[in-house]
């Protein structure tokens, strides 16, 4: 920035740009000598260039998850912040600024802006953000980064032959589990030499095929903006942003429903998102108005991912990628001040979200036996929102706020019926119950066909709230409020209501007391109580399966839906045990043995109904209590103390299964201390405790089977029934199959820091920050499950000895505690060599120790039907040091 008195700074800058940083450094002494005027130091912006180098002590993808410091070794430090334009006291309103940060890393950012203040402004920004996911992930697939993954030519299908000679079993990838004994014919038997050779050959062939692939993504964003003041009342603004995201992510998928195993794939990311904003704003004396446009266009350059089946490499499977889509929105906002204290602000918006990406159609085994009803979705979601808020102060000490909110997501996507086989599954030999009803030749569709209709979810929010805030005494205010929210959910075009709760109504009462009755001591206490009530429809799941409204072949006289309506049942069927006398008619067909609705009678490959009493928590009856409290005490001019407590409790009081309640507590304590304006220290402690309880029942199917394997094997050990017959007869209502969970996250965070400026005669500033975090996640599980005695096998295996249980009840066990400990220490110092030159040093230590059982199941030889990735939990100790030279000028 220049001044009328001295334009040296600008001349120095020009020279600096021409001659570079070294020349700048050489001139620093001259510039320092040029001016020591204190006012000038205050009124002229400082421009800065920082150059240096740092060193990272070890590779760590997690430490460098977002900061670019994931590789051991040297890295460059290069930042700048250069400003210029007219002086504050000149007639030139020009201002410009260019900044760059982390230019030596994958997190670099460069920005520039230029303005004639009060007239127009242009700005530009380029930003990179690398996000690391895993550097320990391994995969046997070749072609990572492309949309086609293939297995190496030497790939051998993993099997454990002593267990099954044909079933894929990834436990073969470790000698410990691949060569373990198995029960053969009721006898624990070591694998034969031939079986051992098979496993050893698999290990020798497949394990070397697993190679490391680093999983990370990088976003590169370019933004530009422009604003123009048309006159003192009108302003136009526009901006555009282009973001490119590339990289690799892990992606799980089922390769085959037949062999029932999952593959964790390398998912290639190659996406762009363009966003646009434009607005025209009018600002009047007592009113304002704005019309605005927002556009977002997402484009995915990868439409699908195809991979070879590890069970049968002659087959492939294909996954769809996120479809390209766009969203365009017009927004109108206006405000009017009826008086200085009575104001109305209204806002409305209309948006259209479209998606018409061509469907992926390459399925195996005639996956779409009737083809597809459309080649693409032609998806359209119209969003309409309206908001109004009226604020008033009718009397001196009373403030009122009344608001109304309408937010409608109207999904107008066409509903069609899709006929498909599950992943790589062939048509069942038995015929679908709906061939005739659909006018199809007999046995066109198998009984395992999925006949599904898409459910385009719509949601409409109507909300009204009113709050009053009254000064009850000097320094004390009391606030009270009421809010009513109604949410309607539906699917346009669905043959039946699709929403579990077509309407939810929630009322909230709240009160708050804020006080500053004692000097330097202020605080607040707030309480809110909400009640949400819903009309829950446990048969809404049928909206997915339109065949539920069609009478199936096989003797039924009504459709599944009609049967449920007539009997008042849900798809779960009667909550009952095995019937004492055989059921007949529709009951024998739709709820055989008092079991749930058979899948084939609504054309689904899976049971898609829920347990009676399950309530999805986002639309379940709920009572919510919230308590907030905080206190702030300025104990002296140098010391301030703060404390706060947040407590929430949600009771899903009519949910028998699902989330039943949730409770959270957050405690924060903080102290700040400053001796002078040069020294400040801070310490804080945060404790958060989040608990939630859920429940379920691992029901079975009622049957009158009295033994396991062979007739003598009838004893059940543990559980609620002593015989196999009793257990099976009550499989659907066995109280021992009820289970519950108690999840708890407890996190303690402790921090301390200081800043000390102007040490050593004003030359040295130092800072230090330390944060320690200890997080524990516990999952307590109560209940249990039955497991057959593996020796209880059909003849010719020997019958179990008398008294030996055929079935064991295995009690649930709590999950191991998952823990994370982090220590983050940052020390920094900046020493001024002279008025324009300084040196900065930094030291950063971060320690992370995590212990999480989820990684156990990713290792070789662990899960039977998930391809291992050998990913490892994050643990590291990283030291970073950096030294940089800073040149500054005015």
């Amino acid at each position, binding site marked *: 920035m*220049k001044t009328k008195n001295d*334009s040296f700074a*600008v001349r120095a800058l020009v020279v600096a740009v021409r001659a570079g940083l070294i020349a700048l450094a050489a001139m620093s002494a001259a510039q320092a000598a040029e001016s020591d005027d204190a006012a000038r130091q*205050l009124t*002229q912006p400082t421009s800065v260039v920082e150059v240096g180098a740092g060193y990272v002590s070890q590779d760590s993808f997690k430490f460098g998850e977002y900061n670019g410091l994931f590789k051991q070794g040297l890295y460059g430090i290069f930042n700048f912040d250069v400003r210029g*334009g007219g002086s*504050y*006291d000149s*007639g*030139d309103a020009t201002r410009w600024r*260019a900044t760059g*940060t982390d230019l030596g890393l994958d*997190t670099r950012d460069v920005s*520039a802006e*230029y303005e004639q*203040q*009060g007239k127009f402004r242009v700005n530009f920004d380029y930003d990179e953000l690398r996000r690391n996911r895993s550097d320990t992930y391994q995969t046997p697939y070749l072609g990572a980064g492309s949309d086609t993954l293939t297995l190496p030519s030497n790939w051998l299908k993993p099997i454990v032959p002593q267990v099954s000679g044909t079933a894929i079993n990834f436990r073969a990838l470790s000698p410990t589990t691949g060569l373990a004994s198995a*029960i053969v014919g009721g006898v624990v038997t070591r694998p034969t030499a031939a079986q051992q050779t098979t496993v050893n050959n698999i290990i020798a062939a497949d394990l070397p095929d697993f190679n490391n692939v680093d999983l990370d993504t990088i976003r590169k964003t370019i933004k530009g903006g422009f604003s123009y003041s048309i006159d*003192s009342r009108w302003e136009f603004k526009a901006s555009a942003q282009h973001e490119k995201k590339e990289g690799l992510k892990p992606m799980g998928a089922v390769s085959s429903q037949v062999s029932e195993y999952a593959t964790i794939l390398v998912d290639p990311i190659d996406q762009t998102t363009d966003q646009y904003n434009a607005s025209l704003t009018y600002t009047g004396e007592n009113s304002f108005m704005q019309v605005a446009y927002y556009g*977002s266009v997402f484009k*995915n350059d990868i439409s699908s991912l195809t991979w070879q089946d590890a069970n049968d490499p002659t087959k492939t499977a294909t996954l769809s990628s996120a479809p390209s889509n766009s*969203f365009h929105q017009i927004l109108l906002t206006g*405000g009017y001040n009826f008086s200085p204290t009575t*104001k109305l602000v209204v*806002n409305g918006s209309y948006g259209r979200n479209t*998606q018409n990406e061509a469907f992926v159609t390459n399925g195996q085994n005639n996956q*779409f036996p009737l083809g*597809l009803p459309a080649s693409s979705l032609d998806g359209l*979601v119209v969003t309409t929102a309206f908001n109004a*808020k*009226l*604020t008033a102060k009718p009397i001196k000490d009373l403030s009122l706020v009344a*608001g109304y909110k309408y937010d409608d*997501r109207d*999904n107008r996507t066409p509903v069609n019926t*899709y006929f498909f086989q599950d992943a790589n599954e062939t048509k069942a030999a038995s015929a679908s119950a709906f061939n005739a009803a659909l006018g199809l030749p007999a046995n066109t569709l198998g009984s395992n066909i*999925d006949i599904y209709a898409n459910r*385009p*979810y719509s949601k409409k929010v109507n909300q009204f709230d009113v709050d009053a*805030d009254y000064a009850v005494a000097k320094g004390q*205010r009391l606030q009270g409020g009421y809010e009513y929210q109604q949410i309607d959910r539906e699917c346009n075009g669905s043959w039946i209501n699709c929403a579990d709760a077509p309407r939810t109504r929630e009322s909230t009462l709240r009160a708050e007391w804020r006080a500053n009755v004692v000097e330097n001591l202020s605080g607040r206490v707030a309480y809110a109580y909400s009640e949400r009530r819903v009309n829950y429809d446990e048969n809404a799941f049928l909206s997915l399966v339109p065949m539920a409204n069609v009478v199936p072949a096989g003797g039924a006289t009504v459709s599944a839906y009609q049967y449920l309506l007539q009997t008042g049942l849900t798809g779960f069927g009667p909550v009952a045990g095995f019937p004492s006398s055989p059921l007949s008619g529709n009951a024998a067909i739709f709820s055989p043995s008092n079991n749930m609705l058979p899948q084939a009678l609504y054309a689904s490959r*899976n049971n898609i109904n*829920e347990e009676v009493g399950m309530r*999805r928590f986002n639309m379940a009856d709920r009572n919510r209590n919230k308590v907030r409290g905080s206190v702030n005490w300025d104990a002296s001019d140098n010391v301030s103390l703060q404390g706060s407590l947040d407590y929430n409790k949600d009771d899903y009081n009519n949910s028998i299964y*699902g989330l039943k309640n949730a409770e959270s507590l957050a405690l924060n304590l903080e102290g700040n201390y400053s001796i002078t304006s040069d020294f400040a220290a801070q310490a804080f402690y945060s404790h*958060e405790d989040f608990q939630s309880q*859920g429940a*379920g029942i691992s029901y079975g199917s009622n049957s009158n089977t009295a033994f396991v394997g062979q007739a003598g094997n009838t004893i059940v050990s*543990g559980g609620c029934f002593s015989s196999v017959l009793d257990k099976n007869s009550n499989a659907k209502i066995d109280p021992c199959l009820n289970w519950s969970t108690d999840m708890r996250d407890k996190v303690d*965070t402790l921090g301390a820091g200081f800043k000390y400026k102007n040490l050593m005669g004003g030359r040295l500033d130092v800072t230090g920050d330390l944060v320690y975090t200890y997080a524990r*996640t516990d*999952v307590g599980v109560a209940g249990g499950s039955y497991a057959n005695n593996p020796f209880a096998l059909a003849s010719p295996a020997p019958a179990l000895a008398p008294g030996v249980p055929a079935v*064991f009840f*295995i*009690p649930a066990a*709590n999950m191991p505690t998952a823990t994370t400990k982090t220590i*983050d220490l940052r020390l920094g110092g900046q020493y001024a060599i002279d008025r324009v030159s300084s040196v900065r040093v930094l030291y950063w230590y971060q320690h992370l120790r995590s212990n999480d059982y*989820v990684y*156990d*199941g990713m290792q070789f030889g662990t899960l039977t039907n998930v391809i291992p990735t050998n990913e490892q939990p994050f643990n590291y100790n990283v030291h970073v040091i950096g030294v940089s030279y800073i040149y500054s000028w005015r």
Partner: protein
Amino acid sequence: MLPVQKFAALGAFIGLFLAGSVAAADNPPADTAAQKALAKDAVCTTCHNESWRVPILSLYQTKHGNRADPKAPNCQSCHGQSTGHQQDPAGVHPEVVFGVKSKNVSSAEDRNGTCLGCHKTGLRMHWSGSEHESRDVSCSNCHTVHIANDPVLSKATQPEVCYACHKTQRAQTHRISTHPILAGKMACSDCHNPHGSTGPKLLVKNSVNETCYTCHAEKRGPFLWEHSPVVDDCTNCHTPHGSTNAPLLKARVPWLCQECHSGDHGAAINSGANLLNGNATTINGMLPPANQSPRTQTNARACLNCHVLIHGSNHPAGAKFQR
């Protein structure tokens, strides 16, 4: 465009600024309006000069101090005429005092009224009646206008300003699964508009999902097979500031999924007995190892081992979010 080309273009862009600046430097236009404005300021800056205990003259580095802009305020535009203070500086404080630590700090309403006199539109259109406004938060609680770089306007330093009150969120950013807030690549204002908004929790858009889609547009769809809690509200499953359960999940899978799914294989219990080397002990001894098959839904990625397109699938056979 190659990276080198990008930086060359940027260099040219900056060069243009410099050239314009140099040209202006050689011909500083006289401006009586600016001098008049400074003369008004002198009512205050005569005492509150460069020697004052607080470096208020730094204001001249900011937009407020650009005296060539006729809309820029002078001292009394914000602090009031303060004639009493001029006559008795020690005994009478200025009409509007912004310093939140000052014993004489003006009411939040008075402070905000001063700022809103000019800044009533833009991001502040929904200020009136907003959460912060109704709890006596004032502009000067967050903004520091007399210094060159207001910390709340910088992505790297803004969160610390917000943490002065939002301390739980500060702690959450230190968890193993977070957004890049600590790394300085994301600021609170990327998602929230502290001045008021039409969305919940002061979010910058009308809804949670619209806000999330500004960075995660791939999850916007609409998909052929929608997952109802996803289109309902991202925070049904995710917590944005930090979590012990990656990726930013409110609870661990599979139990998070089982809060809504109790049918088919979703009905089964998942406990430590279903882990590798889990407690498969029966009262009659261990089950033989070869028959242990750790439950897929309990281990590794749990439900997401298979149902990974959980935000929605556009595959005609993807109704179960496996395709």
